């Protein structure tokens, strides 16, 4: 590995961190002390990957070249613009606080020990991915498109334009992972198809870091850390980086989008709303399932806010949603304008035709067994989803954290229903084979969100034991307060 390669790697990651860090600063989510800045590195990187990749997709869609120069200028412009906003806002928005102190030495030792094991595992697994080959799906879709973007410096490649050759290979799939992969190639100065598996694992590590960053302020680490650890070491998690598919990428953004919205529902800090919208936009640009999952999360937030009659947060949500849609539309518009075929989505007129759905009802039962079977498989997803269901029901029964519990329960349920719909109506003739080759990957988003959500609910429950029961109007009242009531309560 040459010095130039190392410097290029550092440069491209620094650019992502700069853009994402400026975004965090602009939305008031940075603490301006060494520890706070260090803590924000992971979320800044991930937010930067989402933001820069989305802008790059917009640029290639309108025909601008995707070169190393573009890759340098776009993050710098984003960092400059958002940094200017941050300078103007500095001090006016309260940044998220610190974790609650440890209650005992054993708790401190346990937390440090768990974190150390997690870091060691991530490093060990990451180095295990260093010589992986490109498997079938990436060679026909994800890596192929990343290489085409890199070499053609945009969408002017037959891989994106020649429907006669490439129509069978999901030519309409969203572009975020290939755009990110091409950015890494530009940084390294060459294609690095084996190395990219490690980069994908690095994204996952950054996602865990970001989840910890979102969950940490005002809570006890020991309550939420085991949930993050369990899903990190679960058997299903390394599948996507091993295979090179985009399932973990979409799961990262869906789960972090869901978690950010959950924290926003609880604390009403605008930073969480904006991050949630950004992450869901990234999810929708990562895979087609991401579009459906993003809608599921958005509908869950919407229903909770409507039930609370929280009109001001509702308006804020609509604004954030408009921003997210603006970031999702470019690729969808490109696919529509260029009539890119969607060979795995059944047309609406076929779905509505007589007997199509009823004639395939048998698939629904098989799909239910397949999807729930995967989600309750301890060796795949560490029971994360059934644990979330149990915990959310407990909160609803106890009338504590009801909006949060309802949000996660509705969100996860809608995501599962979306998966069942896909398997019920999908174009694959044999649903058993369809499940066999995909369900271990398609459930990743549900499982990751469930783990984050269970950790969040538990940590919030640990805080709120002595507080009054949720009333329908309490969140609406809280929405009018720009501060963080839970944090204030926790600190007192």
């Amino acid at each position, binding site marked *: 590995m040459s010095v130039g390669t190392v410097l290029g790697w550092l440069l491209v990651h620094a650019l992502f961190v700069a853009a994402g860090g400026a975004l965090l600063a602009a939305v008031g989510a940075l603490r301006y002390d060494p520890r706070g800045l260090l803590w924000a590195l992971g979320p800044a990187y991930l937010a930067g990957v989402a933001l820069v990749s989305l802008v790059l997709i917009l640029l290639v869609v309108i025909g601008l070249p995707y070169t190393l120069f573009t890759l340098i200028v776009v993050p710098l412009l984003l960092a400059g613009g958002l940094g200017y906003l941050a300078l103007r806002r500095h001090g006016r928005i309260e940044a998220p606080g610190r974790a609650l102190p440890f209650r005992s030495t054993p708790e401190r030792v346990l937390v440090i020990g768990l974190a150390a*094991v997690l870091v060691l595992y991530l490093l*060990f*697994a990451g180095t*295990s*991915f*260093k*010589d*992986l*080959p*490109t*498997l*079938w799906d990436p*060679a026909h*879709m994800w890596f*192929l498109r990343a*290489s*085409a973007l890199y*070499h053609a410096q945009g969408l002017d490649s*037959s891989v994106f334009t*020649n429907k006669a*050759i*490439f129509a*069978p*290979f999901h030519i309409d799939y969203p572009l975020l992972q290939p755009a990110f992969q091409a950015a890494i190639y530009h940084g390294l100065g060459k*294609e690095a*198809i084996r190395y990219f598996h490690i980069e994908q694992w690095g994204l996952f590590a950054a996602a865990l870091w970001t989840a910890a960053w979102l969950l940490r302020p005002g809570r006890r680490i*020991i*309550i*939420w850390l*085991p*949930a993050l*650890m369990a899903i990190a*070491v*679960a*058997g299903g998690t390394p599948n996507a980086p*091993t295979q090179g598919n985009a399932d973990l990428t979409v799961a990262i953004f869906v789960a972090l989008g869901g978690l950010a919205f959950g924290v926003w529902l609880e604390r009403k800090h605008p930073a969480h709303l904006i991050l949630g919208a950004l992450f869901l936009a990234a999810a929708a640009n990562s895979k087609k399932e991401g579009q459906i999952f993003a809608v599921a999360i958005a509908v869950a937030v919407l229903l909770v806010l409507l039930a609370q009659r929280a009109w001001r947060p509702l308006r804020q949500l609509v604004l954030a949603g408009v921003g997210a849609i603006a970031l999702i539309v470019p690729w969808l518009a490109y696919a529509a304008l260029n009539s890119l075929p969607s060979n795995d989505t059944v047309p609406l007129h076929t779905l509505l035709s007589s007997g199509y759905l009823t004639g395939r009802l048998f698939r629904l039962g098989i799909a*239910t*067994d397949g999807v*729930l*079977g995967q989600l309750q498989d301890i*060796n795949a997803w*560490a*029971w994360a989803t*059934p*644990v979330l*269901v149990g915990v959310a*029901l*407990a*909160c609803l029964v*106890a009338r*504590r954290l009801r909006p949060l519990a309802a949000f996660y329960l509705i969100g996860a349920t809608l995501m599962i229903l979306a998966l069942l719909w896909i398997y019920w109506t999908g174009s694959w003739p044999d649903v058993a084979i369809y499940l066999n080759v995909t369900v271990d990957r398609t459930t990743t988003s549900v499982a990751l969100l469930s783990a984050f959500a*269970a*950790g969040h*609910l*538990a*940590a919030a*429950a*640990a805080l*709120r*034991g002595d507080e009054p029961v949720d009333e329908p109007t309490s969140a609406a009242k809280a929405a009018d307060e720009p501060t963080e009531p839970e944090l204030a309560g926790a600190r007192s």
Partner: protein
Amino acid sequence: MLPSVSPWLQFTLIAAGVLLAIGAVGSLALGGLNRKTIPAGVAAIVPAVFLIVMPVQLGLSADRANTQRHDNAGTSETQARERCLTDGHADGLIPFVDYLNKTLPAGASYAATSPGQTDNACLTYVLMPHEHVDFDKAQYLVFIGAVPTWLKLRVQPGTYHTFAPGQAVGRVKA
């Protein structure tokens, strides 16, 4: 695991078990089921369940990662790229692909007589950065399998090279 029970029932039983455990902690350890003890039960049970589940998962996942390390040790960048040929039972194309990558000029465009629709994407991937285009836009013609006469007529005389039976390449007439 309960292999004889249907997955949705297993899912429900695990969720119910978590709910019961929260109730048990609330009623037995904290003195009753109410709005204070149930959240305390939630805060106790969630980390407990994941801490119990985690060690076995950690061992299995570390073992799987190590298997990946051993199984793929020494795979070169070229071998990693050409894996789709192996997976597509087209190992016989690998020497030809290596030859094409060495001899086609940088950035050259080519069209290929079909190795089958499914393999076109793989062929494109293994021949990157050369561009896979339609016949009427190609600078080079790559013949895999049959060599159609009408297409061979488009090849500039003296540039047609047979690499192996059923594997040939030629430059398109200017």
